[in-house]
């Protein structure tokens, strides 16, 4: 474009400075940062304050104390529940990544012409309502659900003995979580495979590597950042999950997130302990995010 050419050919460094002098950086950033400070950072600070009993639901005198934290770290109940949730999330994330890898590989490397259409086909379910997808599984897995009544109808199972472990179990929670996250996970893996230079594979092949060797020594290592990102994109949100377990988990599928919700619930609220649990979860997620930050490049996700 003519205008653009004229602009850049005259050397724009001084001009850029002039744009900057009129400077809108504070105006641009003021509102978004203020919003996040007031409605994101301060609220987390308040939760922390509750966890140290600086604030409290109970009237009467109270001051800074570590009691709730000490109780939490010595309580086998909460920590055991936390590890159970960690195990469930790890399992779901691992399975989902393993399933998603071949999908991404197919889209990125098979040379199919319709890869973006197929990618959209794969991701579209993720963009639809979360609760509706859970609802679908409730309809499918229940004692009077699609699977069981289908089995009764075909005579494979008697109506007196439905497959009752399908719904309200740890299995159901993990199945639904896997179902929900599978489409999304393929995305970061796809992006990393897509940016892979095919000439590397050709070179490997010229040097006598079999496809399997080339995959193991070239493709897989180079796509590892995408795999790690994909893993974390599932692990982090499922670790604090409470909606799916409360709908399809029953007592067996109860997760750490449900415990937090219940501590703030209407039954026997214990905001102090609940805040400890919440801050602990946040801390774990924050550490994971910082440690793996280089894999979580937002641009990698945003790119197409």
């Amino acid at each position, binding site marked *: 474009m003519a205008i653009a050419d004229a602009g850049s050919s005259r050397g724009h460094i001084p001009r850029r400075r002039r744009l900057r002098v009129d400077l809108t950086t504070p105006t*641009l950033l003021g509102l978004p940062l203020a919003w996040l400070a007031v409605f994101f950072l301060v609220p987390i600070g308040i939760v922390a304050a509750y966890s140290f009993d600086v604030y409290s639901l109970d009237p009467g005198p109270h001051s800074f104390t570590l009691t709730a934290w000490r109780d939490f770290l010595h309580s086998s109940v909460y920590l055991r529940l936390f590890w159970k949730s960690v195990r469930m999330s790890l399992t779901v994330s691992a399975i989902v990544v393993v399933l998603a890898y071949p999908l991404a590989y197919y889209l990125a490397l098979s040379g199919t012409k319709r890869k973006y259409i197929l990618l959209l086909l794969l991701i579209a379910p993720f963009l639809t309502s979360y609760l509706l997808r859970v609802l679908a599984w409730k309809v499918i897995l229940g004692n009077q659900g699609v699977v069981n009544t289908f089995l009764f109808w075909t005579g494979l199972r008697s109506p007196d003995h439905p497959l009752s472990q399908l719904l309200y179990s740890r299995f159901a929670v993990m199945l639904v979580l896997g179902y929900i996250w599978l489409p999304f996970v393929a995305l970061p893996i796809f992006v990393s495979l897509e940016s892979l230079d095919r000439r590397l594979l050709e070179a*490997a092949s010229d040097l006598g590597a079999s496809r399997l060797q080339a995959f193991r020594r070239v493709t897989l290592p180079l796509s590892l950042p995408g795999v790690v990102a994909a893993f974390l994109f599932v692990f982090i949100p499922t670790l604090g999950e409470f909606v799916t377990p409360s709908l399809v988990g029953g007592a067996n599928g109860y997760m750490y997130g449900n415990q937090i919700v219940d501590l703030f619930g209407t039954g026997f609220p214990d905001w102090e302990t609940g805040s400890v649990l919440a801050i602990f979860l946040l801390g774990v997620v924050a550490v994971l995010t910082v440690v793996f930050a280089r894999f979580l490049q937002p641009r990698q996700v945003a790119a197409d």
Partner: protein
Amino acid sequence: MDVALSKNGARLLRVFFTLVVVFLYAPIAILLIFSFNKSAVPTFPLSGFTLHWYREFLGNSEIKAALETSAIIAAVSSAGAVVLGVLASMALTRRFFRGKAAVSALLLSPLVIPYVVFGISLLLLFHTLGVPRSLLTVVIGHIVISLPYTILVLVPRLDQIDVSLDEAAFDLGASRLRTFRSITLPLILPAVVSAFLIAFTTSFDEYAVASFVVGTRVTFPIYLYSALRFPSQLPQVIAVAVVVLILSLAVVVAAEVGRRIAERRFASLEID
């Protein structure tokens, strides 16, 4: 010879891909089928075709009120998130300042916070300030969680646009606001629209955070959640679910296709 995949390998992966797509769409298809099923409980065998549940839903004022509430919240919060997102993205792509990495990490951090923690944080904030829960409190929360999504859509778009276009306008005497209005904004408009739609669908579907800060007027996901726990109105809910699902799918696909077309057009303009 293809270096990445043998013929059989490609065939195998194609079959696998198809199976996964079937797995992903089957539950949605089952919802669709049962929304036209006569029986009041979703069980086999199917008991005949009916539009009864769709008619019921059209007459159910509770569902309609919840849909309306969600639409209002989604519209206001996504407008808010887009405004904040455009401001932040302009700063991230067009300005130099100290601590940019930290600022950008903060702006994106709502992406990774567990929603249960964020929901409780907002609950405690409003409790401490004595703010009653209402539509506004949900809007506030939804702006926070959709803001990073808008930034993720807007920043790559702004990066693509030559800064010298802004500078040229500025040289020709346009004020910064005028430059933004007549140069930058039109160029990023497709991204603004898709940021809005992503924020809208995020908010419209959001249950976790809303469940902590919602007032007496329930949103659609909150309504859906309670209907799921007490499944007396299940077929109607399935019917609404199907309508919402198809609408949101259509919006998302339209947004994506629209963005691609607009960007392709722009790309060809640039080459000229």
